[in-house]
């Protein structure tokens, strides 16, 4: 491990590094979280819980993937809340804080009424939770009673309701920070982010899973995962959602002055750096852990640490938001500078995929010679970069100034 100090402060909570375990099956039990802490995670937001009066019935199986296996692109779940209600979760908070006082233990909560939210938050604070995460973006639906139906499927799709619920939680939380987790499934996420600020929220976590249908079973015609012939919409997470998450973090960072927790498709230290650069102060990880286990924290921390040192930075805080100034409108990108594809003939294995992609998806600028060597026609190449994306050999094709 390098020498840079990975400590960050998020909503006033000190973290030994920026990496938290996101509220999910990964953080359902104190035993799991304890192992995560021992592996090196700075904290965890325990899986969303609620009041025992609320029904929480999960149908199984609840997982389905896009390209399952070693190349899993994205993971889809129809999970609901933890099957531990608030009191049991609070006991876990107490146990974890007693055993890992240096680690951040947050608790994700979901209520239906003002009274319920207040009771849940009060109990979490009394148990010693370092922060409260308000879960108002679950694709499986938010629980709101009476005439408080949101303008959508989730509370976080409704700015007015978001502000209201944030205020309920914050009022009950007192000095304990309240972080609100937002859904990307909105027309303008900055409106919702402003509502959080308006409601007194201390921070924003983005993004929650994306509402989706990961596939349809060709035998039963039901959405995946199929449960006795039926399926439902679910939350989509993992590698595939990172571009959406990065865009949301950048949008929110440019709109409100609140500390952000970046989540959505963080698998590598590079992903982590990208979230920091676009304005996240800390990071949350779930799907990568579900796929590869708690042990990935070592590579995440080490990679981040070395990158910081190589760049002459002493702390992650120094790079937060540094990429925002580079994010401009399309018309502000420098135009008219010609770049062309350049193929490293030593690395090229002669598969010809760049030739086919360029021929059928671009500008017919890569020829494929008899000796299976791809050759770029620098005149015809407009510099689109498609060939770089399809080449199976890392670093073999690069875009260079003409």
């Amino acid at each position, binding site marked *: 491990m390098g020498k840079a100090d990975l400590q960050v402060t998020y909503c006033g909570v000190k973290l030994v590094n920026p990496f938290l375990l996101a509220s999910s099956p990964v953080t359902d039990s104190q035993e799991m979280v304890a192992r995560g802490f021992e592996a090196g995670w700075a904290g965890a937001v325990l899986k969303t819980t609620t009041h025992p009066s609320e029904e929480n019935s999960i149908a199984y199986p609840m997982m389905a993937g896009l390209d399952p*296996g070693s190349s899993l692109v994205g993971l889809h779940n129809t999970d609901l809340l933890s099957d531990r209600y608030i009191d049991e979760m609070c006991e876990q908070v107490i146990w974890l804080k007693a055993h890992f006082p240096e680690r951040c233990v947050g608790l994700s909560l979901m209520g239906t009424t003002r009274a319920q939210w207040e009771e849940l938050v009060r109990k979490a604070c009394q148990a010693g939770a370092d922060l409260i995460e308000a879960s108002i973006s679950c694709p499986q639906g938010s629980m709101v009673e009476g005439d408080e139906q949101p303008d959508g499927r989730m509370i976080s799709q409704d700015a007015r309701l978001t502000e209201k619920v944030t205020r309920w939680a914050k009022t009950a939380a007192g000095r304990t920070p309240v972080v609100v987790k937002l859904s990307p499934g909105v027309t303008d996420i900055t409106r919702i982010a402003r509502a959080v600020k308006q409601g007194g929220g201390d921070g924003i976590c983005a993004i929650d899973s994306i509402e989706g249908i990961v596939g349809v079973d060709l035998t039963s015609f039901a959405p995946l995962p199929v449960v006795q012939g039926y399926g439902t919409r679910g939350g989509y997470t993992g590698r595939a959602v990172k571009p959406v998450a990065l865009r949301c973090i950048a949008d929110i960072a440019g709109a409100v002055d609140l500390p952000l927790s970046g989540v959505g498709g963080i698998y590598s230290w590079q992903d982590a750096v990208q979230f920091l650069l676009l304005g996240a102060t800390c990071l949350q990880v779930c799907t990568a852990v579900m796929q590869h286990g708690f042990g990935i924290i070592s590579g995440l921390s080490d990679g981040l640490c070395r990158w910081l040192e190589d760049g002459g930075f002493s702390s992650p805080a120094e790079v937060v938001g540094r990429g925002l100034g580079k994010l401009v409108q399309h018309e502000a990108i420098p135009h008219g500078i010609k770049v062309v594809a350049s193929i490293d003939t030593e690395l090229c294995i002669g*598969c*010809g*995929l760049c030739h*086919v992609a360029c021929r059928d998806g671009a500008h017919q600028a890569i020829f494929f010679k008899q000796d299976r060597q791809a050759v770029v026609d620098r005149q015809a190449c407009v510099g689109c970069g498609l060939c770089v994306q399809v080449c199976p*050999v890392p670093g073999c094709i690069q875009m260079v100034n003409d």
Partner: protein
Amino acid sequence: MAIDHLVRSGMVLKTSHALMDASRCLGCHDAPCSQACPVGLDVPSFIRRLHDGNLQGAGALIYQSCPLGATCGMACPTGMLCEGACVLQKAGQQAVHIGALQTTVALNYKGVESAKLIEKPARVAVIGAGPAGLGCAVALRRHGHQVDLFDRQDQLAGLVDRVIPAYRLPAEIVAHDLQVLSGLKMNFFPGREITHREFETLRESYDAVFLGVGMSDTQKVDFPGSEAAGVLDALDFLHQARLHTREQAEKPDLGETVVILGGGNVALDAAVVAKRSGTAEVVVIYRRSKQEMPGWDSEYLEAARLGVEFRWLTTIAAVEQKDGKVSAVLIQKMRFVNETRGGRRWVEADPDLPPTRVPCQTVILALGQVVERDWLVDLGLKLTPTGIPVVDPETRQTSLPKVFAGGELVNGGSTIVNSLHQGMQAGESMNVMMSGKGGWHGKS
């Protein structure tokens, strides 16, 4: 499936495991694997169909190009063909296991081919039901022509299903291919040796004749004692061994030491079969050195791995016998002389070294197969100086009108897939010639 035990034993990939390997295929443009395949199988396309979960579509693609799809996947020297051309190796990666994928897909294929119905089918006699003859017959039946298939043996697929050891090509694999082809309804006449007189009759009564008789003559030896009990012909030995694995023959009793004469794949197969059947000592006697050995490296390595002993630059001077049975061989050391014959370095007995005696109970002769030259001459075929029928490389037509030839008879012993390809080429060109306007327009 009747091949479950082959999957369990690891000889055939489980479909799930095949999918893992399929995902490694890059799907190259103008794919080198396809170019390296004698029948030009569209490898990237069948692998993509496999990968996309279209197993039947993948199988149909394989059988369209390669009627012995499962057999070739398992018996082809893929390292010298498709897999040898896989570009992944340029990046230091293992080639996609194309052969294994092909066999898995082919074995999962449930389709049965059916012949086309046409108004005026031609009638073709195919002599020899090995890969070349089958290839020709399949191509013709697909076009709707009638095919009568003659073979001196009583089973289809020729040497493929007679002598290739079961550990390399289980009978079930060939049987599956034949099942897929069964719907083509070729008329098979087993146990039919065609004399040159019958050949003339066939030429008169059929629209065309295909010769796919292979190399059906065994080279003779003339050392003392070669008539002793326990001196076996390698092809007979391999055939008995293959029958034994099907429980259709007794296990050959070979004794403790087996000496094999020859350096081709048949010699190597015989050595491995003898070793695997529990023979303590197996010695291969080859008159040249390892560099000249015609057997494939993969086969040699397998034999060496099992502990087969190789004595380079040696030959059998004589077989000693006791009560009419083999008791020992006298092994003569050879040396290279400064001369090349037929493109090969020549050797002679080393006069300074007397023969050494090796006690043994079995001698297997694997000196190689040759074409039946006299028969070919009697047919009236024009032959090359080495005795091979002169054949047009595109149409496979011989010097005789409406007579075509392919397979080992012409290629002098190559791969199954090469013979298959030559037969299919012949069938295709016959179809073109026979379907042309004004009827037959081949050379006549």
